Structure formats: C-alpha cells, structure tokens
C-alpha cells in the first residue's frame, strides 16, 4: 500500500515537473473593444510583438460583434499607438487602417502612370481590389456600421473597372499605332 502511494506521488511529482509555463502572450480578447485594445497593447509592449496579427484579428471580431461608428476611430488610435510602440511601421498602420476602414483602395496605388503601371497587371489589380472590398465590408459595414461608405467603395470598384478597361484599351491602341 505504501509502495503504491509512493509511486503515485512520484508520478504526480514528475507530471508537475513536465508542465510548461502558460503562454503569456496567448490571451483571449473579449468584451469591450476599448479595453481589449488596452490588453492587446500591454501584451505587445511586453514581448508579444509577433502576436500582433492575431490580436488585430481578434479586435476586428470584437468590433464586428459590437458595431459602432466610433470603432474606426478606436482602430485608428490603436494602430497609431502600436506604431509609436515600434511594433508596426507607419506604412503598415496606414495599410491596415485604409484596407479595412477607408473607402479608398490600397490595392490601387502607385507613383507611375496608369498605362505603364496598372494596365499590364490590370487583372491582378482588380482581383486585389475585390479581395480588399471583402475586408472593407468587415471594417466599414460590419464593424463600423457605416454602410454608406462601404457602398461608396463598392461603386468606386465598379467605376475603376470601367475606367481601367477603357484607359488600358486606349493605351494598347496607342502602342499599336
């Protein structure tokens, strides 16, 4: 009997030794968006920078569950603070904010003329814009309750498609001549 009890104690002791430390970066963000952002930022400030993407997605999920016009402002402030903490660059902050919360498309940008930059990859650009529209649906419509801005982005996508089709056809005709 004593042997059995001793064996059980030994096994339990060994099991206790092999238990790993809980991941201090793993956090179940929930509830109020503002406080969830505060939690995420404190984690990011304490060595969890590599979890930024998962935190951001969790925050979007919380916002989607609690749609509010102010959510886009909260995300803007959050991204700026995270940028100031050095977790993400300014360009990354802008990219994320605009992808989810702005009418304009980050997929349609460039410093060179449309004929040379966009027309050769027009199909890819349009495909990227369509994917971005899905993110805008989440950020603008579902998270920020801003249907008007989402519809405007949708219209912009359609108009861009039309204008690029005509412009690129004109560019090609000019090359042929």
């Amino acid at each position, binding site marked *: 009997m004593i042997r059995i009890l001793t064996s059980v104690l030994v096994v339990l002791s060994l099991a206790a030794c092999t238990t790993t430390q809980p991941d201090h970066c793993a956090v179940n963000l929930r509830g109020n968006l503002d406080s969830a952002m505060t939690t995420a930022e404190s984690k990011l400030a304490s060595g969890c920078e590599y979890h930024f993407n998962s935190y951001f997605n969790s925050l979007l999920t919380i916002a989607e569950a609690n749609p509010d016009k102010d959510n886009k402002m909260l995300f803007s402030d959050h991204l700026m603070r995270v940028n100031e903490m050095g977790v993400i660059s300014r360009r990354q*902050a*802008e990219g994320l904010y605009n992808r989810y919360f702005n009418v304009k498309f980050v997929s349609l*940008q460039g410093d060179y*003329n*449309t004929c040379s930059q966009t*027309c050769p990859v027009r199909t890819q650009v349009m495909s990227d814009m369509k994917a971005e529209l899905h993110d805008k649906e989440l950020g603008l419509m579902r998270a920020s309750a801003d249907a008007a801005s989402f519809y405007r982005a949708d219209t912009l996508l359609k108009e861009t498609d039309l204008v690029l089709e*005509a412009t690129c*056809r004109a*560019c090609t005709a000019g090359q042929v001549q």
Partner: protein
Amino acid sequence: MLPRYSNSNRLSDLACALTLLVLLTVGAPDASAGVSGPVVRLFPTTVLEDIRETGQVAEEMENNLQEVINKLDMQQQLYTESLCQGADGDQGCERIAKQLGSTYLEMLDIMSDRLPDMERAVNNTRSSLEKRLRQELGQRTTPTTLQNALLGETASVKAEDRPALRGRSGVRLSDRFKQYYNLVSTNREGASKSLAVVASDIYLDMDEAAHLIAATQEEIGRAALMEQLNQSFGTITPEMAAVVGGVKEILFGESMTESPIAAPPYAIGEADFVSPLAM
C-alpha cells in the same frame, strides 16, 4: 467580338446588330455634359464636336426609322387583324405581306444610307476619346490620382442626374436626349460629374458600335437579297417580325431595365471621423 452569321438566322442576327448599334450609339450626344473637368481634360472642344455630330446622326437615324417603323407597325396590325397568319393562297393577305416586305426593304435602305455617316461619326468620336483617355488618364494620371479623381468627381452626383450608362436598353431616344440635356443644365449650375466614367463609357460603347456597324453593313446586303426573294412568295418571316419588334423597342422605349453603374453618392460630412492614417 463580331456576331457569327448563318443562313438560317441572318435576319434575326441583323435585328440584334441593329438593336445594339442604335442602343450603343445613342448615348453619345450629351456626354458633352462633362465640360467642366477640374483637372483631367477629357472633353475638349474637338471631342465635344465629334460627340455632338454623332448625336445628330443618331437623331436623324431615329427620325427616319420612326416613320418607317410606324408604317410597318400599321401593316403588321392589318396583317394580324385580317387573320392572314397561315391563310395561304389568300390574295388580299399576299398583297399585305408584299407591302410589309416592301416597307421592310425600305427600312433596310434607310439603314444602309445612314450607316456610313454613322460609321464615320462613331469612328471620329472613338478616336478622339481614345486619344484623350490615353493622354489624360493613361499617361498623366497615376493609379492613386485616378482613384482620387473618381472619388472626388462622383461625390456630388445625384443618382437621378446620372444617365444610365452601359447596359441600358429600350429607352426612347428622345428621352435619352432629354436626360442628357438635363445633365448639361445641372452641370451649368455647378454640380460635377464623373467625367472619367462617362468618357470611358462612351469610348467603350463607340468601340463596340464601330464593330457592330461594320458587321451590320455587311449583313444588310444579304438581308435585302433574302427579302427580295421573299417578295416573290409574299411571306412574312419571323425574322422580319423580330426586326420590326426590335427597332420598335428602340424607338418607343417599351422596356426600360436600366442598371446604373454607381450607387447613390455619399458626401462626407464635417462630423465624420477622418483618421490621420487615411490616404
């Protein structure tokens, strides 16, 4: 892409071609509405002249076709009310059928007469717009500024001010002109319009119309020959009826299934949040 033709359905193909041709070209005239482009100059005087001329040619075509279509309509009604369908050998019915066929040939003649003018006007408009689009949107605009232009220009356009663009069908031509006239009036009062979208729309329409005109011109000769043969037998073919129906729809706008490109605009108010991260 040009339509394919077969011996069995050449007239119905022609009907489709004519229908599309007129539908595609009527949109041209009043795009002159977009005179006041703030940055991008897509409609200089030369382009406006080309567009105006295309509109005039389209209007003349409408007027000429309307007369002959009215005649065809009356003859078709007489044929139907006289219970001529399937009445083989009836001399009265054969006479009506021949008159109808003759009027139909008259319509093809009008088309044949007007199409060269239309072809020239459409090609001029297409070329001038093509050049402006290439220069102004293709070479002098970056993707970023293009996006800004599209957003900026569309912000103040009301849905009711915007004519239905690509995909329109069955709209009475004179109504189309009225729509454009109203648009011009609105612009004079200061409201802007998405010039890039309008220019692109007209250019793509002109491009398609040019192909259709060429295809239609080729087909008219064959269609006329076929009807001349039909005259010998005094029959009304289903293809003829389809052509008449199609052109009637164009002239009288019996169906109107417009699908505007743009949704109702949304103006950003002062109270809206603008992030410092925004583009």
